[in-house]
């Protein structure tokens, strides 16, 4: 598979086309469905590029096959999508230039990148950046500060925009070679792992600041009153939030559905508050 961009002759992806494809990347999820994923959106995204590649009426057969190819099943973290689409665009260009290019390799590369890139994209954007943004946003918003939602949006969307812009740029320039190498030699795994570590630390911090359960249970022993919360605080601060969260996590790992857990929590909170435990 040869997919290095030949830099000698002028590129199909000029500045104007690049800008069009970049803005269209935001509409990727528009026709999302279970059968095709964001396949239609992926085609819509590189349509300006395909038009530029095959502008003439007599190119119709090639254009039609490019249109059909572009619409194949595609599902990926949206922020990461411009990167494989840039690669796909550079491969479409190769396909036109090289006689012995196998066009089926375009979708093969797209499909093989979808999994690992979504893995890294989900943990980076959903598990890490969003959690940091939400942590900071919630902290401020709790006190009614409007900076909460604003910072939340900014912290998430600046990396989101950068990943889109440079993803498309480098995807197109590098072609498929680079990322496949990173996948094979294990670099992608390291990035995913680092993102996971950061995500776990953030989730840990948020467990303390958001699960605010405290017991109001008191024992009477003769003339002494024991406040259970005080005793627990001496053992370990925040032991109730941590155990409740870990117990819930355990139930999820045991494949108990979220709805059943909600139901359980409804029952528990009514019973325990009636018994004056909480």
């Amino acid at each position, binding site marked *: 598979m040869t997919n290095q961009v030949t830099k000698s002759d002028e590129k199909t992806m000029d500045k104007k086309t690049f800008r069009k494809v970049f803005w269209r990347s*935001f509409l990727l*999820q*528009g*026709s*999302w*469905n*279970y059968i*095709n994923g964001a396949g*239609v*959106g992926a085609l819509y995204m590189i349509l300006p590029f395909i038009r530029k590649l095959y502008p003439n009426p007599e190119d*119709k057969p090639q254009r*039609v096959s490019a249109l059909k190819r572009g619409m194949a099943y595609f599902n990926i*973290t949206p922020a990461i999508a411009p990167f494989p689409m840039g690669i796909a665009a550079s491969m479409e260009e190769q396909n036109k230039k090289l006689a012995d290019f196998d066009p089926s390799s375009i979708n093969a590369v797209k499909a093989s990148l979808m999994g690992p890139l979504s893995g890294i994209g*989900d943990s980076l954007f*959903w598990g*890490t950046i*969003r959690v*940091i943004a*939400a942590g900071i946003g*919630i902290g401020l*918003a709790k006190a*009614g*500060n*409007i900076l*909460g939602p604003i910072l*939340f*949006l900014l912290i*998430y969307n600046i990396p989101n925009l950068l990943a889109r812009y440079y993803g498309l740029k480098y995807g197109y320039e590098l072609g498929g070679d680079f990322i496949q190498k990173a996948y094979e030699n*294990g670099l992608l795994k*390291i990035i995913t*792992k680092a993102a*996971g*570590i950061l995500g*776990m*630390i*953030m*989730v*840990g*911090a*948020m*467990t303390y*600041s958001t699960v605010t*359960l405290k017991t109001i249970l008191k024992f009477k022993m003769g003339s002494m009153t024991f406040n259970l919360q005080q005793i627990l605080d001496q053992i370990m601060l*925040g032991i109730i*939030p941590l155990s409740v*969260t870990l117990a*819930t*996590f355990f*139930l999820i*790992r045991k494949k108990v559905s*979220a*709805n059943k857990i*909600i139901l359980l*929590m*409804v029952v*528990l*909170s*009514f019973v*325990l*508050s009636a018994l004056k435990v909480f």
Partner: protein
Amino acid sequence: MLVPALWVALIMFVGNFSDCGMSDPMIRRPLVMSMLVGLALGDLRTGIMMGASLEVIFLGISGIGGAMPSDSMTGSIFGTAFAILNHQGVAVALSLAVPISLLAVFINQLVIFVRGLLLTFFEKYAEEDKPKAIERLQYLSIVGGPLVYALIGFLGIYLGSGSISALVHSIPQVIMNGLTVLGQMLPALGIALLLNMIYEKGNMIYLLLGFLLSCYLKLPIIAVALIGIILAVILSSIDKNILDVKNMTTSKKAAATEQNDDQDSLEEDFFND
């Protein structure tokens, strides 16, 4: 109720549009949606604070791969709107938001189902070389879903607010206490779901680290994030070094075996002669 209903319809439209027409820049999250509802209905502060509480509950619930266990956007918008319009506390609003978010999943399923039906047309247009038609249908598809949400937002507030408020006023104190406790317990589910997303064997220890940093050291969340970033960089650079060494040895080995192969083939050639 006409004006609030129109506002809520608009916010529903914007929220859902941001998902399918802007690739989900987190505008549809409770933190932002509740703020907008607060702004539109004249109680910004309550909106922001409701958003914080709801964001925690729905933190772990995300639409990855289209599987959405609950519709946090619709739940938060209605929960916040009812709380402000009926002058109810956060606890009641939270308890309304969760069941609404569970019900609202069906709207999403319906919209996705209809989009699936459009696929036949997209395929036909591609076959017939009509890129313009593909674009037009894509735009229609992007606007169609949000319009459904807007309609539901309008009807929900216009018809539902009065009856919900009567219901809320008749709730006895025991139940109100239970709802408050529930509001404190539900965030655990949000966090546990999030945990499930990023959990891998061996990284639970980092959760404990984050917890201790904020619980015993009382560090603000930004400080925890920065410490986390530094730790992640250190650990991944160690991993990178190990990987480099591994790649080097395997490439040496590969080179060595290649040489052996060459010798083998030489021998074969020798014996064949």
